[in-house]
């Protein structure tokens, strides 16, 4: 891509970004609708190109290399498309049953180990070690996992010991939620800071960034105050 086209793409990218940021203003406006439909059109186009390229590289090249069994992937794929046909929709049931069957096998054959057995095994540890802090960690984890599990029992009355463990579990869960909320915020902030960093590096981008921010803020307010925002935005 030549230099001018790349420059134009970067500046367009900056401006369309702040058009989408007008979502934060909370009222409909045409800038936001333009950004939304731009992404819907271009994004779907990219997934079509990548999806069909994957089919070509895997199935077609595979058959050319002698893997003739892969002809079934093309056959099943075409049958899957009947899913939206008003009369012959039932044709898609065969490939659906096949893909859901293999999908179930793939997830169930390993999920029992990674998400169930390994997690239980990792909780069953010697509590006392010669490091006091490690003892505190291990007791906290063991008590938290057990009590929070009792909080999510539905088909039995939580009375007696179960009542107290589920109450303790609920409080410990909210401590966990507080820590997790903060970690999640760090991640989201990292996304925003990372993107703003790319809009101010190299520094020639900074004036375009500040100008786009100002233009879009003013436009959002004007579209709202004049009532044009509702009229000119998408249905």
């Amino acid at each position: 891509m030549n230099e001018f086209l790349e420059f134009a793409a970067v500046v367009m990218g900056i401006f369309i970004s702040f058009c989408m940021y007008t979502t934060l203003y909370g009222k409909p406006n045409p800038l936001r609708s333009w950004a939304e439909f731009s992404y819907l059109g271009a994004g779907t186009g990219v997934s079509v190109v990548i999806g069909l390229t994957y089919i070509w590289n895997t199935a077609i090249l595979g058959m050319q290399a002698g893997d003739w069994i892969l002809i079934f992937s093309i056959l099943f794929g075409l049958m899957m498309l009947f899913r939206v046909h008003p009369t012959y929709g039932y044709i898609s049931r065969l490939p659906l049953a096949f893909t859901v069957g293999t999908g179930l096998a793939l997830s169930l054959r390993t999920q029992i180990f990674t998400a169930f057995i390994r997690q239980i095994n990792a909780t069953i540890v010697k509590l006392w070690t010669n490091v006091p802090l490690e003892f505190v960690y291990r007791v906290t984890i063991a008590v938290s996992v057990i009590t929070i599990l009792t909080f999510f029992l539905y088909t039995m009355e939580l009375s007696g010991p179960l009542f107290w463990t589920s109450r303790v579990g609920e409080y410990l869960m909210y401590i966990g939620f507080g820590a997790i909320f903060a970690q999640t915020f760090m991640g989201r902030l990292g996304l925003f800071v990372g993107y703003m960093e790319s809009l101010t590096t190299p520094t020639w981008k900074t004036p375009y960034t500040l100008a786009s921010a100002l233009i879009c803020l003013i436009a959002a307010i004007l579209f709202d105050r004049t009532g044009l925002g509702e009229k000119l935005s998408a249905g």
Partner: protein
Amino acid sequence: MADEGGIYKRMATYDKRWVYVALFIVVLGPLINPIGMPIGISAQTRHYKAELDTLQEGDIVFSTWNMEFSGYMELKPGVLATHKMFIEKGVKLCIAFGHFEGVALPPEIFKQLKKWTDDYDYTEGEDYIIIGYVFPNEAAVAALAGDFHANVRVDWRGESIEGTFLDEIQNGGDFAMISDYTTGLATTNIIRHIVLEYDTPMVVNSIGVSVPGHLANLDAGLITALLASTRGGAELEFLIGSPGPGLKSMDAFTFGHYSLIIFIIIGNIGHYGWTRRSGARDRTGIR
């Protein structure tokens, strides 16, 4: 009566768009005029670097980019710092994408690594091969893990991978390490169908939202090291002595956190000063 509660009511019920304006200012400000405040280095990042230091020249690492372009914005410091270490060590890379937007990443990433690839004569085809978008779903991960060459015949430009260093790879167990950069996507499937099957060591640079989940995997021994979000990447930049986008963003990171803390304090003052007495209800799902 109308304005009873005055300042406290305003602190409890202000227009939340002021939070948005404040966040824009405290983030863009230090990015345009960096201050360069100090940062602490976590034990988690030191362990991540130690794990990478075990690699030898010629080792083949499976570098799995399980991130959209947007996820790369958060993981950029960790991606660049880790790949600088790979290039300096002479590790060979097999790069795969877990999202269709991955096709936009190599030009962006290798433009930032140009100084390293030139200095160490690190070239595509010889030292790294991009096999492209090969993880559209779990079945594709499992198939590739079991029989690599039956499922990957060409690289992302459509050129054959025969006769390259990837000839040594028959299945997921032949990689010296998996280096994953993830917003979620195929990471769980890689753990299930490669790590669990072949015990291949796996280090993960994860976005903040997935850190709690990966802490459970780290504790269960499913992954060997974890680098958390932008901040982990900035710490790694510091440890390898190569400042980049991570360290540059740390001021904005600090102010972004402090701005939320200030708004929380304001909200609590308003809550005790007005909400409790007025009987109004805070709109939140916490009991």
